């Protein structure tokens, strides 16, 4: 899949330590390094508490890294702030786990989807047309524009969330357990949609997921995290068939 040798996203020695009152510091992410190549889809597998979501939040710059560096398109974004951070977000978008909670309950879906377009200076009429196009791109009709999040199903809401994420044509998409809260039939549809869009729009993807089967199905390469550390990395098929680490073995054995 590598189209050229420079990684789109490069994470080096990333560490996050949470200070706690009266208790020893909690190391959520411990010296994590990985590269995501152009067009690649990298899966991060781990259970709750493994630090995988903290990694995503640091890359998306919602929280500061304690140490280490994050490079996006050759630019160091570890400490990006203000306007330069907004620039980062034009290249990198995110789909969250809980579809309903990722939409403002008092805004119409269409308004939420178009928010980034409005912020980038597009005129109101163009925004409306573009949002309608985006809705159809993710398999929703224009009827969904004026709906509120609680008026649609979880799957429809997640489709809208994907539409919002791709609205400004980011080069990089982070999916943080984007399909975990969905029913199986909906999950497979959303996975198919994501796969199509990533291919069509030539996006690079960081796919965070606790379901190793899903990562095997969806990703080109994968890393396994436990207690904030990377315990295994490689092609998902190789990891599943020939796990090296004891934790990975247990994880695979537990899949029913």
């Amino acid at each position: 899949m590598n189209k050229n040798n420079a990684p789109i996203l490069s994470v080096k020695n990333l560490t996050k330590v949470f200070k706690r009152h009266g208790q020893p510091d909690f190391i959520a992410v411990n010296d994590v390094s990985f590269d995501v190549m152009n067009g690649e889809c990298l899966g991060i597998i781990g259970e709750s508490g493994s630090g995988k979501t903290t990694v995503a939040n640091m890359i998306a710059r919602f929280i500061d890294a304690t140490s280490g560096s994050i490079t996006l398109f050759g630019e160091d974004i570890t400490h990006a702030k203000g306007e330069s951070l907004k620039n980062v977000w034009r290249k990198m978008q995110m789909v969250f786990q809980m579809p309903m909670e990722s939409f403002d309950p008092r805004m119409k879906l269409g308004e939420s989807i178009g928010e980034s377009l409005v912020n980038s200076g597009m005129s109101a009429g163009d925004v409306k047309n573009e949002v309608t196009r985006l809705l159809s791109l993710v398999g929703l009709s224009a009827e969904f524009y004026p709906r509120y999040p609680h008026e649609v199903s979880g799957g429809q809401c997640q489709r809208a969330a994907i539409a919002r994420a791709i609205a400004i044509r980011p080069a990089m998409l982070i999916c943080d357990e984007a399909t975990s809260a969905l029913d199986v039939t909906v999950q497979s549809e959303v996975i198919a949609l994501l796969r199509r869009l990533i291919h069509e729009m030539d996006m690079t993807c960081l796919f965070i997921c606790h379901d190793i089967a899903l990562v095997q199905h969806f990703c080109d390469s994968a890393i396994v995290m436990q207690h904030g550390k990377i315990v295994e990395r490689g092609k998902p098929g190789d990891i599943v068939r020939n796990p090296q680490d004891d934790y990975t073995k247990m994880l695979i054995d537990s899949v029913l």
Partner: protein
Amino acid sequence: MTMENNSTQAAATTISSISSISTKSKTPTIREQHVKKKNVKARLFFFGALLLALLVMASFAESFCPYDPYAQNLDIALQAPSAEHIFGTDRYGRDMLSRVIAASHVSIFSSLSLVAAITIIGTTIGIVCGWRGGRLDTVLMRAADMFLAFPGLVFAMAVAGVMGGGIMSAVIALAAISWPKYARVARSKTLSVREMAYMRAARLSGSGTLKIIVRHILPNILTPIIVTSMLDIGTMMMELAGLSFLGLGAKPPIAEWGSMMSETRRLLSTVPIAVFAPGGAIFVSVMIFNLFGDALRDYMDPKRRGR
């Protein structure tokens, strides 16, 4: 009580018996369900209409008065209710009905402006504290605690006393002790809303702080604040009347329900209507505001709104 298993229990069932299930005889029991209709909307309209009527009366109070509420006529002082003076007259011969109606203007609009002021001030401070956090939050919230540390009405009396009475100083005194409640509600709601996933989504879309606060935070924290303020109007009306009753609010001869009760309290045994008329007016308007607030809360909570 025993935790031992019954080892004699039948072994796991064979699946073969399943097919017999659908051939069960006997018609199934039918149970009737009584669906309670929720009439939240009807209640909201009803009390909303009453509230509107009250506000219209308060706005054009003078023109509803049958007599001039300030015209003294000692010849007819202290009359019992009659066809001409339904609530009788006070000791200066002023028509009580006219005075009660005229007083609605001061009583209602002073409480409304008081509640509007504390809602805006408290909410603004609360949002700033919740959003910024840090030292500013600590300082403002400790200030709020300070205002809450005094017994409310006593503190308001002191403030009103220092400022020298008048309805304006009563309003300011009550505002000083009431804003922290709104600041606290707004702050805690802001703290929870800013952690929601949609806040991160909004930031990802490139919206700035001001836009996020106005478009995303304010609409999502407003419901409890509006409901609190609606329910507060009644309370504030009573407290203002209380301060006026104590002589720290509206000054005679201005018609105000609290001060009218204070003026006429000595007549309680002889002309009770002179006390009960303004008292009843307070009771009715407080009830209307509270019941409207209740209906509004139910309406704004989608879970109570029903289908």
